[in-house]
């Protein structure tokens, strides 16, 4: 890639010619705040948090949409820039409920983080009536609280550009602009397929999963793993509080690029379901009775030995599982072949 020279925060640096200012800053380890930016989306400069000062430019420029140019002099944290970001945040917070004490997003909220970083308290434009719009909870998996929406547009763009469902868009003009769905009939009446990709990218508490267990982001431990539904192999992060999975976030895996479907995002509640099998069961006179592992193993082993002796190894068969891991499957076929002595092993590949 061809390089050019820019001057950023007073220092000369070489960057790729095709970079935006935001990408250039990132490549040099300079952090520029953004709310609406997502590498997978066409940059749209909606949130105005990434504004920077460029010498000889009439106004502050959004770093996410402005390409670098040879000799460009950029200041990412000048006083003018800081003041602009503060005003932007003040304007956002002026019409945003200050309910961080009870908001589930606290600790994982870009607006909260930046207000903290830029010392914005919400007092500057106080005195106006804030929106008091109804919360849309028509979808079975997530809620939409338009009062918390800062109109960054990420949800609309993810639904349109990545998920390609285009269930949501913007309605209204000016101050009454809001994220909506056809005919304002409620999310559940749109073409929404409940993939939750909008929920995963929402930087504030506007789009939130319906989850009964309350948790704070800093309370959960995240573990990256592979989704257990279809064969796409999406990478997910399981969020765990007190040994219970309380949420799923998409990870940037090679096959899913940070996207999930409804089952991957919201279909995790079977894990902690009360119906889960917890103890070995042995059937006696048609009724299952709880047993110890040793009792269960002893019974199975004695049956295997007995049937093998009487009818031969080939009178036993095993069905392995396309739902279990490679290691589980390897051992299952090894047990059937090496220990029981038969190749009668198959699984649900054809179903």
């Amino acid at each position: 890639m061809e390089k050019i020279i820019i001057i950023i925060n007073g220092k000369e640096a070489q960057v790729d010619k095709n970079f935006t200012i935001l990408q250039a800053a990132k490549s040099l380890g300079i952090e520029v705040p953004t709310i609406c930016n997502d590498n997978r989306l066409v940059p749209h400069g909606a949130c105005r948090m990434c504004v920077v000062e460029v010498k000889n430019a009439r106004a502050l420029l959004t770093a996410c949409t402005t390409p670098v140019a040879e000799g460009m002099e950029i200041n990412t944290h000048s006083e003018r820039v800081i003041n602009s970001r503060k005003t932007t945040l003040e304007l956002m917070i002026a019409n945003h409920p200050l309910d961080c004490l009870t908001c589930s997003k606290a600790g994982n909220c870009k607006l909260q983080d930046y207000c903290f970083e830029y010392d914005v308290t919400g007092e500057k434009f106080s005195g106006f009536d804030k929106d008091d719009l109804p919360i849309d909870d028509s979808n079975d998996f997530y809620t939409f609280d338009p009062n918390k929406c800062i109109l960054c547009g990420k949800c609309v763009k993810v639904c349109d550009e990545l998920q390609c469902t285009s269930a949501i868009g913007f309605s209204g003009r000016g101050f009454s602009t809001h994220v909506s769905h056809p005919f304002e009939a409620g999310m559940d009446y749109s073409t929404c397929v409940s993939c939750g990709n909008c929920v995963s990218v929402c930087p504030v508490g506007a789009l939130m999963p319906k989850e009964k267990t309350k948790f704070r982001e800093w309370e959960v431990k995240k573990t990256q793993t592979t989704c257990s539904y279809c064969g796409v192999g999406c990478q997910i992060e399981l969020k765990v509080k007190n040994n219970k999975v309380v949420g799923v976030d998409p990870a940037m895996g090679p096959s899913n690029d940070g996207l999930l479907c409804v089952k991957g995002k919201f279909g995790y509640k079977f894990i902690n379901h009360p119906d889960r099998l917890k103890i070995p069961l042995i059937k006696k006179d048609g009724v299952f009775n709880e047993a110890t592992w040793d009792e269960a193993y002893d019974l199975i082993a004695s049956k295997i030995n007995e049937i093998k002796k009487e009818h031969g190894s080939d009178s036993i068969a095993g069905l392995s599982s396309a739902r279990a891991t490679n290691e589980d499957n390897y051992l299952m076929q090894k047990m059937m072949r090496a220990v029981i002595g038969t190749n009668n092993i198959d699984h649900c590949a054809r179903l």
Partner: protein
Amino acid sequence: MTNSINEIDKSEVIFIIGSNTTENHPVIGSRIRRAIKQNGAKLIVADPRNIDIANDAEVFMQIKPGTNIALLNSMMNVIIEEKLYDKEYVDTKTEDFEKLVETVSNYSAKVGAKICGVDAEDIKRASKLYAKANVASLFYAMGITQHTSGTYNVMAIANLAMLCGNVGKEGGGVNPLRGQNNVQGACDMGALPNVYPGYQKVVLPEVKEKFEKAWNTKLDNKVGLSIPKILDKAISGDLKMLYIFGENPMVSDPDTKHIEKALKNLEFIVSQDIFLNETGELADVVLPAACFAEKEGTFTNTERRVQRVRKAVEAPGKAKPDWVILSELMSKLGYDCSYNSASNIFDEMASLTPSYAGISYKRLENNQGLQWPCPSEDHPGTKYLHKDKFARGLGIFKPSEYITADELPDEEFPLIMTTGRILYQYHTMTMSGRVEGLNKQAPESYIEISSKTAKILRVINGEMVRVTSRRGTIETRVKVTEIVEEGVVFMPFHYANGANVITNPATDPLSGISEVKVCAVKIEKIA
């Protein structure tokens, strides 16, 4: 898949046949839509139903269930007639082209159109679109494989891809979308009656010797029983015991009565699962297993990518990871089995499986996975197969003749029923059926019928009807929709006492797959 999911971005034309991609592999469905929207890729869809992604297609062909080969042969006929095939590729990389020419010569667009119930012009348009692309990819799922002609359907797909030089090319390929998280891995691991891990054949003496040495035991060189044969042998009384792990044939397999009869005829059944499912109810011993979130391991996805599964929570009660249960049981049976971790098992497997030899937990730590074949520790994995030349040398054309489905509609059973999955449920619902929101979206079984069929039957949307095939009768709710054509009906197979009570267990003699995509039924008004 011969190719990788992210190569969809490089395809000029994408052909989906027998896959309801946006519902069953939604993330791949979105990726295909993105390729259309952002890269201008063109889409061809062939399916018995007017599925959602058909709306994005340049050409959509609503074929009758079970007519895939006629369509594919017809497309190849057009491509050869109009000399649109990749001659250089065919000449230098393949063999038996003449045989293909001979077979497909009987399938003009007109002939294909008649068999498939589509417009001949659409077949021509689709053929040209596919053949003229510099690189075109083909995606299919169970709509291709779950037929008595399943293997030949796949061969027809491979023929079309080779004819246009799309195998061994980035952005092209023959790409089956695997339905279950680790169905690829379970096959790779040798959970099949004829092969050890890595598709090493049980009948080959040198392979048997290799595993006998590694496992320190004597092994059998006869091919074992596949599921349909297991069931038959259970009914005949030759099979006495079945160890079922993570599977629910009472709902997933065709002709439930037949399955039930087979299972009830066994002397002893072990069911190892995370829930007590319909099959577990019939077991003598039930073992509680840890689910994916409670254990370490790996899954191999549809693009051959091996990725980590990590433990996030403790298993409930006394449940244990499957590999722990199996190794403890093996020890009970007197076989020395001392694995101290899942990674230990993986290493043993990799040492015996050439295509996995270069993969280890350490290499998977970066969360990018590795695509097999990955024969050595310094191998980067394989993005797409058959690069430069086919794995066997020359790609061989295996022409397929169209054969009708095992069961065709007749006077008594005048409708063709096809089955499949839906977005909001998964397989036999062991998992998804316990998620409130999913169940609310898709609470019960139903049958899709067209408004014309509804009119003939004098039934309305939401009405309960009786559906009968040669296997039995069920009651279900009518969903009147134009997604299906007159004479064709569809049922999701997820629900117990639903579609699979009446589906056809006739199998493809080559793969052992059942023809759950086509059977003949009648629908009757209840009141």
